[in-house]
């Protein structure tokens, strides 16, 4: 186990949402992750920072196994989510993705109505029988309320989701994950396509969601990591350099590379 994970881990009373053991990942012959050992706590926001190409998005994508759809990927080591290795043989990949939702840099609502976007996950996972209209209405309303979007769009549920503002689209993309009841939300630079006002609104929402969901957020924006996360992981060249409480990382980084990055000497 490396230096980094010692800092936060080791208190056996903590419950980990995600626990990785010697995770290595290759794209073809290129190794993107080296011996990643992380313990990510349940119900808090953990941010992943590091320069472009350091492997933070790759790590994020291996947590719901979406990497496997995107090309030739080889993994060794394990990722335990709530104590169960998601790379074990008997694991159903569709269940993994259902439990672990993902939000992208560019909002990607489907080109269908707001309502249908929210119901999409529900419909693909329902068991045979069609749910009633009022049941569906409840699902839509509760998801949109959770993401603080209900008041804005309640009168335009049949409008095409792609016509909403980017901020609203991104909130919708978070909302549509909720009806299938995931426990972990992965966010890959969720605010970088938004203007400052939108960024603030989405950050606020993410903060609201913590507690109910374990949130892992990749960001390029140091200020965002600092104000919107409780723990912070710094990665460099596919390795975890430091993992600690966010305030500690930004005030007293233990590692000189972390300090250099945070102070903007590279990246």
């Amino acid at each position, binding site marked *: 186990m490396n230096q980094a994970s010692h800092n936060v881990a080791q208190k056996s009373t903590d419950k980990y949402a995600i626990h990785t053991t010697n995770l290595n990942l290759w794209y073809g012959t290129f190794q993107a992750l080296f011996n990643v050992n992380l313990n990510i706590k349940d119900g808090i926001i953990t941010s992943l920072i590091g320069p472009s190409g350091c492997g933070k998005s790759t790590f994020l994508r291996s947590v719901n196994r979406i990497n496997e759809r995107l090309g030739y990927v080889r993994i060794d080591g394990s990722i335990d989510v709530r104590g169960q290795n998601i790379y074990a043989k008997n694991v159903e990949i569709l*269940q993994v993705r259902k439990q672990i939702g993902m939000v992208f840099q560019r909002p990607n609502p*489907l*080109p269908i109505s707001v309502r249908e976007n929210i119901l999409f996950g529900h419909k693909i996972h329902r068991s045979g029988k069609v749910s009633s209209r009022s049941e569906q209405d409840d699902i839509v309303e509760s998801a949109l309320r959770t993401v603080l979007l209900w008041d804005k769009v309640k009168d335009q549920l049949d409008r095409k989701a792609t016509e909403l503002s980017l901020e609203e689209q991104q909130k919708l993309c978070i909302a549509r*994950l909720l009806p299938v009841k995931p426990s972990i939300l992965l966010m890959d630079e969720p605010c970088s396509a938004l203007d400052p006002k939108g960024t603030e609104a989405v950050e606020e929402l993410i903060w609201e969601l913590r507690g109910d969901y374990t949130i892992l957020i990749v960001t390029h924006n140091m200020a965002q990591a600092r104000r919107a996360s409780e723990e912070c992981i710094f990665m460099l060249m596919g390795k975890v350099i430091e993992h600690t409480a966010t305030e500690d990382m930004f005030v007293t980084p233990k590692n000189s590379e972390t300090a250099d990055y945070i102070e903007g000497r590279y990246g």
Partner: protein
Amino acid sequence: MFEISEINKRNQKTQKLFQILFMMMTVLLIMPVVAILGMLIYKGGSIISVDFLFSNPTNGMTAGGIFPAIFGTVWLVAVALLVSVPIGVAAAIYLSEYAPDNWLTRIINLAIINLAGVPSIVHALFGVGAFVIFFGFGTSILAASLTLAIMTLPVVIVASRESLQAVPLAFRMACWNMGATRWQTIRRVVLPNAVSGILTGVILEVSRTTGETAPIMFTGAAFFLPFLPQSVFDQTMALSLHLFVVSTQVPGVPEDLPYGVALVLIAMVLIMNSLSIAFRMYLRGKKKW
């Protein structure tokens, strides 16, 4: 400081020259279309009438109408598409959504390109060997349509694959990340957004297939038939072959008859193309991303 210089003037002049040159080339392009249509209407327009469109040829095909040929062409094209569209779209979905990038996929792609390059007369001979003789369909609508289907397959596959791949990866990611299977993703998101492109490809193929002569002349199209086909196992007349026959094979045909046949043929094709363009515009107007 911002006044025009001599060098500016010279460059502007050259630019203007090329702009005009390119425009003239483009205008040249539409001239054959206008000339062909104009000549057909001038020489064959007078023979077109309801009677011409809806009655049988008479007097050894030197008089009367062309209904059996129109009827036969519609049949041939319809059966051909009934076969090639499901197969072609299925193949395109496989290649676009499922196929891994390996040697087998590359060989399939190469085969499709090569199939598109096979001359239509070679398709005709293949049709004779495979459908008429080996499968024992005889010279029939079925054999001719299957031959046409094989000929249209590569275009259907390529057009469908391109419209499938034009659907942004972000939509697929959205679905996969919610735990949708590949098929759920295809059925609910990819196909609905690709259908306009697929249909455009299909309709363009209809117009091309309508005019094909070589693939059907040995496999199912007849020189002359006094009756309409009763099933897909019968032979049929077809517009394209009929045009060839009345232009070159029958003595004593009045001059306006072949032009009239050609006009009907080209009108069918143009109507198809216009429909396809209108349809595409309609579907494009509906989708926004």
